[in-house]
């Protein structure tokens, strides 16, 4: 009987401590399936399927009035370029730059190599 009490109190203590220290963390971004799609990309899933998913995500993000995470637009731009939809690529890279000026050097480099036709 005694040990039941001891173990119960240990479990309750754990629960209490965990609950006490848990602070609700508001997220900075609406992630959608960005990371799962990156994983799919690494595993060789077709760009078209990823594009469909990410475009849907983006509509939802916009509806919610939130912000996609860093890299979302750049990743989408890369997928567009992989399937030859070059007209859409630059806009995505520009959008990445607009949302995240920290990406400027890299995005400009990519845009430049695109305009040279090497991408």
């Amino acid at each position, binding site marked *: 009987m005694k040990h039941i009490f001891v173990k119960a109190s*240990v479990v309750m*203590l*754990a629960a209490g401590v965990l609950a006490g220290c848990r602070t609700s963390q508001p997220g900075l*971004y609406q992630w959608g399936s960005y*990371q799962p799609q990156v*994983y799919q990309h*690494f595993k060789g899933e077709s760009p078209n399927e990823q594009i469909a998913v990410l475009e849907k995500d983006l509509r939802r993000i916009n509806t919610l009035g939130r912000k996609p995470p*860093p890299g979302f637009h750049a*990743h989408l731009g890369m997928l567009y370029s992989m399937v030859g939809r070059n007209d859409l690529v630059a806009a995505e890279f520009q959008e990445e730059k607009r949302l*995240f000026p920290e990406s400027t050097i890299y995005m400009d480099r990519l845009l430049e190599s695109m305009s040279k036709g090497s991408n």
Partner: protein
Amino acid sequence: MVKKVLKLAALLAPVVFVVGCATQKAKPYDYRAFEASNPHSILVLPPLNNSLEVGATESVYSTVTYPLAEAGYYVLPVALVNETFKQNGLTTPADIHNVAPEKLREIFGADAALYMTVDRYGSTYQLLSSVTEVSAGARLVDLKTKALLWDGRATVIDTGGTSNDLLTALVQAAVTQIVNSTNKRSHEIAAKTNGLLLRGGGPQGMLYGPRSPKYTGRDATIPVAEATAAPRNDKKAAAPAKRSAQSTAVMVPAPVADTAVSPVPAAQPVAAPVAEPVAVVAPLAIPVAPAAKKVAVVAPPAAPAAPAAKMPASVPMPAPAIAPVLAPAPAPAVQANAAEQIYADALARAQTKYQSLNPGSAWYRQELYDWVMDRKDEYVKAGKAPDVALKLALAAMEGR
């Protein structure tokens, strides 16, 4: 029995506290270089894979963005970065880690680079296959000055929430270990490991970056994104902590691990472009909570996919059913064969032990399992190979 449980409770109590609020105890990390550098953007390089799992790099690499971005940093798009390396003839993480920092800065325009290693991934040589473990280390390096800004290490061990008793779990172990190793769960645990390792504001962890409302640095010129509910907040997270169904997460920033008179022959030095004297090679084996004295133990931010399963008062235990389950298990690889042998052995021994004890208490079974895993980790820490450690732990269990 009472004594034993009390002993266990005594063991658990301090650990639980540390899990709850791991803030005070650990030695303060020296953040001066980090604060001076004040990075806004982080280029994460494809992690070096020291684990046995082929897909570990991709799995870990694809889940680094979330914790870092939510910590307030711009994280360069990992897939695109990887593509750029490829187009420049750099296809392996080792090659990429050797690129000069100036070059990285020139191409990507990032303030800092994160060099990561994956040391363990998946469920190799564990007592139960439902044990999934991912261990990773990271070093943040200023790309201008090449100074080391921060380093850390995290391990998440997920013991699964489905099986509450040793024998059932062992049967599952023998079956699933052989069937698959790169599974969805490993990937989830990898994401959790990244979350533990790279989130902002953790004890000994990364500092918050400029885009976070919690950023404490001087440069706050960048507007803070509006704050709403985190997409990954787990509502069920209030479930009581029960080791059977929760991940055990251990985060060890390298400087803290001055227990690092590493019994394991030091891992081959990672060919890093930066010659820093800092790198204390942490022991490969990180002790799990109860054995841990000096390490900071951090509760995982979210509960594992399977919520804590209720322990049934009595678990049906058809012992004869075990043999047929084990027998037809195919052995596609040599390594799998060895693993199968170990698990079969473990199963037989555990069964013997189990029958000699009063199985009335589900708690006892859990305790037994935890006890074995703790002994195993102690042996690993003492320099034994994982499979040897497991055998020793089982021997210890029988002799108890």
